Every structure is written in C-alpha cells, then in structure tokens.
C-alpha cells in the first residue's frame, strides 16, 4: 500500500481521532463535541495504519482490494463452468488436477460442482464484489472527501464494517474446502432446496456457512450504511448544502438508505431458514417426501422465503447500480467539461428509483402460482421504474452533447456504462411484463438481462471510479494504454458473451443447466456456447491486465505532480496530493458553488471552493 509520508511530520493542525476535535498550531484543543478522545494520531504503527485502520481512505482501499480478490475468484468460477457449457464433451485434465476426483473426475466437472460454481459465482459477485467492493470502496473513500469532513462520523464502527466484511469473506472462502463443498443451492437459496440438508451435496455444511457468511456481510453493510448516512447529513463543510453535493454523494446516500431498510429482511429470511434447516420448524417446508422419507414438516410456505428474499433482492440490484450511476455522472461531467445535465432530475430520478425499488419484488415471482391480480400490480410498478431510469440515460446523453470530451480510461468506462445500461435496461421491459415472463422466466434471456444491466454495467461504473480516483487514492497514475486495451476488450467481449444469450433464452433454454444436450429443443446451440466460452475467457484475461495495472502502478506508476489532474471541481481534489489522516492540512475549505461549473462564462472549470464573483448567479 502507498505510504503517505507527511502524516508523521509537520502538520499545523493535528487530527485527533474523531471528526470533531483538532489541535491547532498553538496546541489548543478545539472541541466541537464532548471531550472523550485524547490520543494524537501522529504515531500510527503498521497495525493501526494498514490493518485496523479507522481512516476512511484506508478502509476504502481495504474494501477495494478485497473486492478485487473476490472478482478474480468469482470470474474464475465462471470460466470453469463456461468450459463445461462450451465444451461439454472435452476432457480438461487441468480440472482434475485442480479440483480432484470428487468434483472433476476425468477432466470434466460434475453437475453438483457445476451448481456450486454457479451458486458461488452469483453470491460472490452480487454481494462481495458489486456491493461491498463498489459502495464499500467509494462511499468510504469519497463521502468525507467530497462533503468536506475529516473522516466518517463513527470511524470505529466504520472499521468494524470492513472487518465484518472480511469475516464474511473468510467464512465464504473456507466453505469451498469443507468435505461436501460450498453451497450449491443457487445464490437465491430457495427452500426447500436450501431448507433441507439432504437435497443436494452443498446444502449441508456448505449452506450453513453460506448463511453465516451472508449474515456477517449484512452486519457489515448495515454498519457502513449508518456511517454514510450520518456523515452526509451531519458533517458537510460550510457552504455544502444538500443541493451542492456531487451526484456521487446523493447516490451513496440513497443507496445506504435502501440498504438499511432492506438488508435486515434478508437477515430475517436467513434466520427462518436456519431454523427450518436445523431446528425442525416449518416456516418454508410442508408436505415433503425426499430420499425415501416423508418429512414431518407441515404448514410452511416456500413462497414466503421468496417474498422475504426478494424484498431485499430487488432493492439489492439498485444498491449495486446507484453508486455506479453516481460515479458515472461525476466522471462524465468532469471529462465532458460541462455540467451534468439535469442535476435535480438526476436526484429526483434516483429517489423515484429507490422508492419504487421497494414495491416491485414480486416480478421475480410471476410464475410461482401467485394470484394473478397481485402479479398485475407488480407488472405496473415494475414497468413504472423504467421511467426514471430512462430519464437518467437521456440526461447522460445530453451531458455528452456539445461537450469537449476528454477520453480518459475512466471516461471510456462511463460511456460504455451508458451503452450497457441501455441494452440491459430495455430487456427488463420484456421481463417485467408477466405474460412475456411466462415464456422468459428462468431462461437465458434473464441471464443476459441481469448480466448486462447489473453485472457488466456496475463493473463499468466501478472501473470508471477506480481509473478516475486512483490518483487521489495512490498519488500515482494508472497506465493509460493498458486502460484503453482493458476497456475495449471488456466492452466488446462482454457484448459478445451476453448478447447471444438473449437468443438462447428466446428458444426456451433454461438457466442453471449443466448440460444442454438432453433436450432436442435446445440442442442446436453447441457452436454458440463454444463462442461464448472463448469470449468469456478473453474477457477474464483482460481483467487480469487491469489487476496488474492496478497493483503495478501503485509502486511504479507515474507519480502525481499536481493536486487536480482531471481539473475537477469537487473538493477531494483540494486536499494535498497525499491526503493524510484528517484529509486537509489546515481548515476544511468552504464551499460556494455546486460541483458542475465546467465551461461557465467561458471558464473551463471553477472548483466548488471558488467564491462567487460580483453579480454572478449561483446555480443550485
């Protein structure tokens, strides 16, 4: 990790551990709250600086690096199962060498292993990479820096939010190595498959550990969310009204509220599942005969779990994409050298999306036997949520219009994001219509939809954020050429992987199928599956290029020589090149204008800290 040297040497004002006390150059302690933190923080040791750090920037980097680790694991899992799907008749000795005879005898993976791979791929990517790795990283990094705070409102809780995430990661990782393997009941873990230990290999200890890992993850998310909301509402610097906050902050705020309200419901669903699995209850189980035995459970509803799961599950996808929205808006405005178009509309649409997110969950359940009238309500609300999403896309397009586009790698990913979000979002309109869902449910069409609109899109938002804020995080530049290669390979490759899946889904090909050749109806996609697999391997390799660039540039990247390399308006770029604990040497700057004065009155950019001139009208 990068070492900020200035932290231990001369600082006119010392940051004293929490967000309200600092000691000025006369040695006086200024106290904006009650007096309980005395120790100075100019002597961090290795453990308190890099491991159990309470500095939001370090915590952000911890989330990022852990997220990158999980992205590699999750991506690798998909390469393995794509090998099976693309080359079902080929034997790959390397698989047996890597996984042994239980999971991959004779060079081919077993159906149980396939289910484990797909289950963990989904779990890892949805939660560990795109939630923790995305909002964990950027909410932590950017909130104090962009609102003008020394650190989060509760740095100790913030540290805990990372370590709960780490604990969840450890549990999930270990679950791969227990005798019957990790969970294989789908990332959605529907009971009774997940509610009965005997229903599949991985529904024993593997699923116990999965549930434990998810519970720990939920604690992490809640702790993080509390901090983000509190800091944004309470610790904005002078002049930073809500209407002058960058869109990143609005996105992180709304995401945190979504998470706080929906994650506990998943915890509830998981607790009931634990009871059914181990304590003889019948929350989800009724009338079951399995492996030669009629079980005593009676009265439960497997559909109850789906309601509880999707009550989180649907907001979860917005928890994933909203931060990406914020990052893209910010990167795009900065690099288009003009304001984000429709700042208020962008905020209102995010609010509308957040509210609607809570009332569309049963569009995942249209074919569960739900009362059609209830289904119809969810059709209406689901298609309604397309409206604010459309507004955002139009606003991004309008932001590009008549701009002076600077194509940094971050900007490339922001533009790619818009393309993918359009493609993936539009297929949601097919799926949201229940009568169409009768054909498309649980088919490859769904896989195509969520990968493009959530998987790849959110990744592009994350990449835009990493490339753009890397100089602020590590005081060095990532290599641009590798960035461009990474971008084009990923954009082209992702479309090559997921676009054809729409076709497979239309013909009825079900998802989560280990093999496609059992059915005459879907037997003809062999060559296409091969093509998709090869594209997937290529895209995975392109990500390794990014990972190399990321870590290499930390030590050997071109050093940053100016505070504000992107000529951006937001105030994180007013901190020193290497911001210490407490972010600003001296007072936190006062803010006078909104973050999007690019090209105003012929001036290329005017940071938020620039006072208004005589007679200048303020925006926002």
């Amino acid at each position, binding site marked *: 990790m990068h070492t900020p040297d200035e932290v231990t040497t001369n600082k006119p004002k010392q940051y004293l551990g929490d967000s309200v006390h600092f000691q000025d150059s006369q040695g006086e302690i200024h106290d904006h709250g009650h007096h309980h933190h005395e120790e100075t923080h100019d002597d961090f040791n290795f453990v308190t600086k890099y491991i159990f750090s309470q500095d939001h920037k370090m915590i952000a980097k911890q989330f990022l690096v852990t997220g990158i680790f999980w992205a590699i694991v999750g991506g690798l899992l998909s390469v393995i199962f794509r090998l099976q799907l693309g080359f079902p008749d080929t034997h790959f000795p390397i698989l047996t060498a890597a996984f042994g005879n239980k999971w991959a005898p004779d060079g081919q993976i077993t159906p149980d292993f396939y289910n484990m791979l797909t289950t963990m791929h989904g779990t890892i990517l949805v939660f560990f990479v795109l939630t923790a790795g995305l909002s964990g990283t950027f909410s932590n990094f950017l909130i104090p820096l962009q609102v003008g705070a020394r650190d989060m409102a509760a740095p100790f809780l913030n540290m805990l939010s990372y370590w709960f995430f780490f604990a969840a990661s450890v549990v999930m990782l270990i679950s791969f190595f227990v005798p019957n393997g990790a969970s294989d009941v789908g990332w959605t873990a529907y009971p009774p498959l997940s509610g009965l230990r005997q229903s599949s290999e991985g529904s024993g200890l593997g699923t116990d550990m999965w549930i434990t890992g998810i519970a720990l993850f939920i604690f992490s998310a809640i702790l993080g969310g509390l901090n983000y909301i509190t800091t944004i509402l309470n610790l904005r610097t002078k002049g930073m009204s809500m209407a002058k906050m960058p869109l990143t902050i609005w996105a992180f705020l709304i995401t945190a509220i979504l998470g706080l309200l929906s994650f506990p419901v998943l915890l509830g669903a998981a607790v009931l599942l634990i009871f059914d699995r181990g304590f003889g209850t019948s929350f989800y189980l009724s009338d079951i005969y399995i492996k030669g035995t009629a079980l005593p459970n009676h009265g439960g509803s497997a559909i109850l779990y789906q309601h509880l799961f999707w009550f989180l599950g649907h907001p979860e996808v917005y928890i994933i994409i909203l931060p990406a929205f914020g990052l893209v808006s910010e990167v795009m405005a900065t690099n288009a050298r003009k304001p984000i178009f429709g700042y208020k509309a962008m905020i209102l649409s995010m609010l509308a999306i957040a509210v609607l997110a809570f009332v569309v969950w049963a569009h995942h359940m249209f074919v569960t036997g739900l009362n059609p009238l209830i289904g119809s309500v969810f059709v209406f609300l689901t298609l309604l949520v397309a409206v604010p999403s459309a507004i955002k896309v139009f606003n991004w397009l309008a932001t590009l219009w008549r701009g002076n586009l600077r194509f940094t790698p971050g900007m490339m990913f922001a533009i790619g994001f818009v393309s993918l979000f*359009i493609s993936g979002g539009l297929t949601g309109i097919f799926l949201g219509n229940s009568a169409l869902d009768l054909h498309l449910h649980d088919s490859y069409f769904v896989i195509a939809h969520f990968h493009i609109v959530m998987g790849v899109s959110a990744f592009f938002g994350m990449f835009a954020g990493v490339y753009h804020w890397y100089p602020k995080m590590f005081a060095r530049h990532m290599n641009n050429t590798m960035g461009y290669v990474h971008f084009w390979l990923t954009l082209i490759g992702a479309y090559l992987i997921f676009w054809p899946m729409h076709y497979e889904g239309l*013909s009825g090909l079900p998802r989560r199928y280990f093999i496609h050749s059992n059915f005459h109806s879907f037997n003809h996609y062999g060559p296409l599956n091969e093509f998709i697999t090869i594209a997937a391997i290529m895209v995975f390799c392109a990500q390794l290029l990014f990972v190399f660039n990321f870590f290499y540039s930390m030590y050997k990247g071109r050093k940053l020589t100016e505070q504000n390399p992107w000529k951006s308006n937001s105030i994180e770029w007013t901190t020193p090149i290497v911001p210490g604990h407490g972010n600003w040497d001296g007072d936190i700057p006062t803010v006078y204008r909104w973050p999007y004065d690019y090209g105003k009155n012929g001036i290329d950019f005017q940071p938020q800290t620039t006072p208004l001139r005589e007679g200048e009208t303020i925006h926002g």
Partner: protein
Amino acid sequence: MTTFLVFLAVFLLGMVIFQISRVNEQVSVLKGEEKAHDETDNLSGRMFLWFGIIGMAALFWSVWKFKGYLLPEAASEHGHWVDSMFNVTLILTGIVFLITQAALFWFAYKYRGKTGNIGYYYPENNKVEMIWTIIPAIVLTCLVVIGLYNWFKIMRPAPADARQVEITGTQWYWIVRYPGADGKFGKKEFNLISDDNGNKLGEDFTDPNSKDDIYPSEMHLEVNKPVQLQINARDVIHDVGLPHFRIKMDAVPGIPTHIWFTPTITTDDMKVKTGDPDFVYELACDQLCGAGHSAMRFVVVVDTHEEYEAWLAKQKSFYESMVKGSPMDPDAPKKMAAK
C-alpha cells in the same frame, strides 16, 4: 501440453501489451499533455464511432444468422398473444435502443475533445425533462395495458370442459397422472408416498377414483382441446416449462399450482412446419432443483382427436398394471401366515 501453451501465449501477449503501454506513457509525457490528449481523444472518438457502426451491423447480422432458432412457433392459443406482445415490445424498445445507442456513439465521436474547445454550459432544461418523462410513461403505460389484458386472459379460469392432467416434480423426474375414465383423480397423501413399493405419488388406493388413474410415460394432449395442468412437487421447487406452448409454472411442495392452455399444432404438423423429422415437444424443469436439474425431461405429444382416443384406449391404469395383487393393493386378500 496444450493448456501450458495457451497459458504461455496469453502471458506473452500480456507482456507485449505491458511493454507497449510503458513506451506509450513515456512518449505521451514527451509529447506534452495537450498534444497527447488531443491525439488520444481523436483516436478514441473515432473508435467509438466504429464500435457503434460495427456493433449495430453485427447485431443485425446475428439476428439474421439465428433466424429460426429464436422464438419457436407458438403451439398454443395464448402463445400467439404472447408472441404478438413480444413483437410490440421489441419494436418499441428497438426504436429506443437504436436512437439512444446511435446518439451515444455519435456524440462520443462528434464531441471528441480538442484543446481550445470549451464545453457548452447547459445545466438543465425542465421542459425537455418533462417531455422525456412523459413519452416513456405513455409508451410504458401502453405496454402495461396490453400486457395485463393478455395476462388476465391467460390466467382466467379454465373452461369447465378442460381436460385435467396432473404433473408432479421430484428429484429428478416428472410423474404425470391422468384421471382416467371417471375424470377424477384418486386422493393422495404425501405420507403414503413410497419409492420402495412404487407408490410414488402416495395415492390412496382405497379411494375408488384411484382405480382408473393412469401414469403415462408421455403426456398426450388432444389438439385444440383445453387442458389444465395441476402442478405439484414432492421435495423441492421445480417448474413446468413448456417453451413451445409459452408455459411456465412453479411446482411447489405443499402449495399446488395450476395453469391451463390449448395446444393448437399437432406434433406431426410441427415436424412438417419446422422441417425437422425429429421434432418433439419437451417439458423442461425451470427451477434449480439439485444435481439432476438439467435432466428432467418429459415428452409431450399433441395428437389429433383419433390419435388421442387411440392412445388413451391403450393406456392401462396404474392400479391394474402396478398395484393389483401387490402389497400396495388394499383389495388383495390377506396373505396367509408363513408356514
């Protein structure tokens, strides 16, 4: 060996990219910021335009290439409604797709950066926001109305004369039951299920209605006659997926579900229509149910009236063929005590 060579090739390619990237960075620094940026912006802008053009062309090409492998011809009455809804949605979303993607890649090209240019300070326009809020809202309302109209039609109660077919999912096969001549299913109780003695549905054979129930190995349906599927599961959630008929309905343990439809094309006619002599209607499981999820295949045959009657006449009831005289048979005389 091949694996090793593949890894080696990828690694070497990575090294090449790395070295070129390093050189490029040095060159950019030497050129100076402005010149370097202008060159990359110009190149990237052009690449975006080419990506948009080639991408769109590839899209159309792929639709042409996979024609015939997309939506199979609908073989049920409501299937045609589903397909026409699909087409309407495709046209509307297709228009939006074309316009927005074209705008995106065109703007990326047209407004590619150049030193000395300045962005146009245009922060908002509420009127335009209203327009592009209201138009999507109207379009989506239309889709909702059409969608729900069809949804309620599909989900309306089955006609009184609909034939009943029961299907039960279990790990990892389907059990289909016909009610036989009396048109009534025998009572069943999950506690009576026993795979050992063959009573896989837990049918209560003391119930007279059970005596003529049929457990066929293929699901035969009569063309143009409505059929209602009574759907169950024994162990975990499965799903009855009939893509040609545009049917999908979960099979949930403890919560029976049902769905009805009217098949409109016989299997023989489909063979002619598709030019595929091996054509067969298949039922696939559409909810992850464990290791055998991709193996739960059940054949469905749509017969003409004569073929259907002939097939039905040939079916022996489950009771007659499997139960009578066996230990399951409640009417069998009690066995004599062993001597």
